[in-house]
């Protein structure tokens, strides 16, 4: 126990000063984290919303780069339906990726779902529409980076990467 005049106090000003420096540094770091969060680094924001298009432009996917585990988010797929189509669009997603997700709803509802090897195929009735927009409400069950591949059966394909936080 030190003595400062009449006061018995266990002070260590050197330690205190170093601590204050660390504290200020910590606050700055936290502000950076929060700003990054608002911008979408951990999901739901401009940094996270992304889009990828297939090489021939017939398939466009809007996805989230960053998501949080078990939090629902949207995956939108827009397909340009070709003229001599059979009134149906067959969209496939790789099974390995689908296994890491829980698919809550698919809008519009597919008329058929089947597995072809490593792909899960969703069949949608389009009639004579020129474009099909499908919305998947999904949630990642796992954490970490995932590469999702998807495409049209007998047509173009594309892929994207998604990081899931705990």
């Amino acid at each position: 126990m030190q003595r400062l005049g009449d006061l018995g106090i266990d002070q260590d000003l050197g330690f205190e000063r170093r601590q204050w420096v660390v504290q200020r540094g910590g606050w700055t770091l936290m502000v950076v984290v929060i700003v990054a969060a608002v911008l979408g680094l951990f999901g739901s924001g401009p940094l996270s919303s992304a889009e990828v298009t297939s090489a021939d432009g017939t398939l466009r996917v809007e996805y989230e780069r960053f998501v949080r585990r078990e939090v629902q988010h949207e995956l939108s797929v827009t397909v340009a339906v070709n003229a001599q189509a059979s009134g149906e669009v067959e969209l496939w997603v790789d099974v390995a990726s689908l296994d890491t997700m829980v698919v809550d709803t698919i809008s519009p509802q597919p008329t058929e779902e089947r597995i072809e090897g490593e792909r899960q195929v969703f069949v949608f009735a389009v009639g004579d529409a020129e474009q099909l927009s499908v919305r998947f409400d999904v949630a990642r069950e796992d954490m970490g980076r995932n590469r999702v591949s998807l495409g049209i059966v007998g047509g173009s394909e594309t892929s994207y990467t998604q990081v899931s936080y705990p």
Partner: protein
Amino acid sequence: MESVLRALAIYMILLLIFRIAGKRSLAQITTFDFVLLLVIGEATQQALLGNDFSITNSVVIIMTLVLLDIGFSQLQHRFPRMGRLLDDVPVLLVENGRLLQPQANKSRISESDILHAARMSQGLERMEQVKFAVLERTGEISIIPVQQGE
């Protein structure tokens, strides 16, 4: 990430509500106040977390709240006038053993409350032994006893 904005909104609203409620609501731990604090905690949880139970969301919200707290305390430090708005000022309740009725009434404090504080903090027995009693910003009542030989 809207969680940050939700945390901000809840913090400001709670700050405003408790500020308006007055000092005694927070310092005194009677059964009423205990129940109130307990239930308010539950009521805010849903608003803060929503459907998102991830660790990331929790940590971001906690960081936001802590930063707000630090921010406001820095603000009070630099701008004392602002401090008054956010955190109130002390009020004299007893002067030389005499209870100042208007202030005590407005602050919802009784002679009994003051004697309670006098017993707890100074071991005093009667109002005549209290030189000053002050309702502090924190809601506590501080007692200055009459010095020996006064």
